[in-house]
């Protein structure tokens, strides 16, 4: 073996070590969160965490159901708002508008994806919350406010990924459809969208991940009541805001319970991703 070859082997080994960093980080994070969060769940029983409705850590009552329901509601709400708007915009910008308009708008929308989430939360607090309070009633800090803000927040992600995947559909598909006498919309609906489906779904999954993981913007507009919301105008607390609201103050079992919240968040995200992933691959196979 020559010296050069030996060096190359060393480099390869070094790079392998570096390459394992990402998976190690993931392992360490998982380990730490579970190490901190699971003991208390064993002590009090998983059922009391997952199905308990009372969150009073100072009285050793750690029911996370309101937060689990809250996270799901708010994420679902964000998708209801963000997905139709985002998809419609993406279809419009790729199929119906002037190329020039698209060339201006797409970068603008992508730039907006970089705006920090706290800014979205702040705008929600200043404009959306008073608007909801004055026009629909309730405290304004609500499921509705949180869903709207998250829906807007995920718009840039959904739009730009949808545009990319719609553009990736070969023009020959469209030409074929139009040659058969289909209108532009029929072409989009029956040819382009099905072909771009997996990319679009990926964008939606990413948006969903962003919505369920968002913390600060939600704390600002959701009201954070640890109760299962009775209506979309009622305040709501998500898993993420539960952690961020109380982490700084918590000690001992309270802190462990917040890590348990982290564990549940972790698991929910994995489950959602898996479901979404399975559906998107299944649809791709069709």
């Amino acid at each position: 073996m020559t010296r050069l070859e030996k060096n190359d082997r060393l480099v390869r080994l070094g790079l392998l070590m570096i390459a394992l960093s990402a998976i190690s980080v993931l392992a360490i994070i998982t380990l730490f969160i579970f190490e901190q969060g699971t003991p208390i769940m064993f002590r009090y029983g998983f059922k009391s965490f997952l199905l308990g409705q009372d969150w009073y850590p100072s009285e050793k009552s750690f029911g996370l159901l309101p937060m689990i329901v809250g996270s799901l509601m708010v994420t679902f709400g964000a998708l209801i708002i963000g997905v139709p708007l985002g998809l419609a915009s993406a279809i419009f910008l790729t199929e119906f508008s002037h190329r020039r308009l698209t060339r201006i708008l797409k970068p603008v929308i992508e730039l907006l994806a970089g705006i920090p989430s706290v800014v979205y939360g702040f705008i929600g607090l200043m404009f959306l919350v008073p608007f909801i309070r004055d026009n629909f009633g309730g405290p304004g800090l609500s499921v509705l406010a949180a869903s709207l803000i998250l829906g807007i927040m995920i718009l840039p992600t959904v739009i730009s990924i949808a545009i990319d995947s719609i553009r990736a559909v070969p023009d020959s598909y469209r030409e074929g459809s139009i040659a058969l006498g289909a209108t532009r919309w029929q072409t989009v609906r029956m040819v382009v969208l099905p072909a771009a489906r997996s990319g679009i779904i990926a964008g939606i999954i990413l948006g969903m991940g962003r919505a369920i993981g968002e913390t600060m913007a939600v704390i600002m507009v959701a009201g954070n009541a640890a109760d299962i919301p009775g209506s979309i105008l009622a305040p709501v607390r998500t898993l993420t805001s539960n952690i961020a609201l109380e982490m700084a103050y918590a000690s001992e079992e309270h802190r462990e319970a917040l890590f348990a919240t982290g564990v549940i968040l972790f698991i929910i995200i994995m489950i959602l991703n898996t479901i979404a992933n399975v559906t998107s691959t299944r649809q791709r196979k069709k």
Partner: protein
Amino acid sequence: MGGQLKLQPRTEQKVIQVFMYLMTSIAVLVLVFILVVILKNGLPQLNLEFLTKNPADMGREGGILSTIVATIFLTFIALLVATPLGVGTAIYLTEYTVESRITRIIRFGAECLAGIPSIIFGLFGFILFVNKLKFGWSILSGGLTLAFMVLPTIIRTSEEAIKAVPPAYRLVSFSLGSTRWQTVTRVVLPSAIPGIVTGVILSIGRSIGETAAVIFTAGSALRMPTSLFSSSRTMSVHFYILAKEGVSMPKAYGTAAVLVISILVINIVTYYLMEKYIKRKS
């Protein structure tokens, strides 16, 4: 009936087109509205003093210098750690191995890491760096936490950039007798640098805008950081506190404007770099 059927798609098309137009307008207007509100209220607050003075009286007075410095330090540490790791991983994945179980595991790790919410990173950084390693609430803890957070982005973009280097470059380099490492450092990386830089810049943007992970690892002390171990408040954390607690709306808008402008500039620079790079190549 027949006539109707023929007409219907046309009308449908018209209706849909108007509907799409409306939806797009709403989406774009809402996003632009946010930008306009921040800039309209924030720009009047910006002056040299705001950028060069430290916050006083809880941020009610003075500027935001210390928060800018803290943001820069934090971001710098994050990239210092994440860039070598990320680029190294990408090099390994693209140049030093074939698809195998190990590469699948590595990719899986990076991809899962990207899906983890920032608050979880915050919790983790708090336990590991702040508590276990006793770095305290500090720039170091915050920077390392952010490094882990942006690692997947850097891996992904670097991998894309390296993959995009034509195989012919490598073949020529090998045929001239270069080793793999020489090929990577002298041929592949220089060609892939713009793509890698894009990933790094994207990560800068993400680091600057992050709040949840930073507030639990870097703390929120309002003073000029003096060492790696000083606790500091970044711009976004400062903005969050100013806005949420109603300390001072003008200062909050000012901080938001600085935040938004720096992120916009960073993104525009990325675009510009990419465009230039694409032009040069073709």
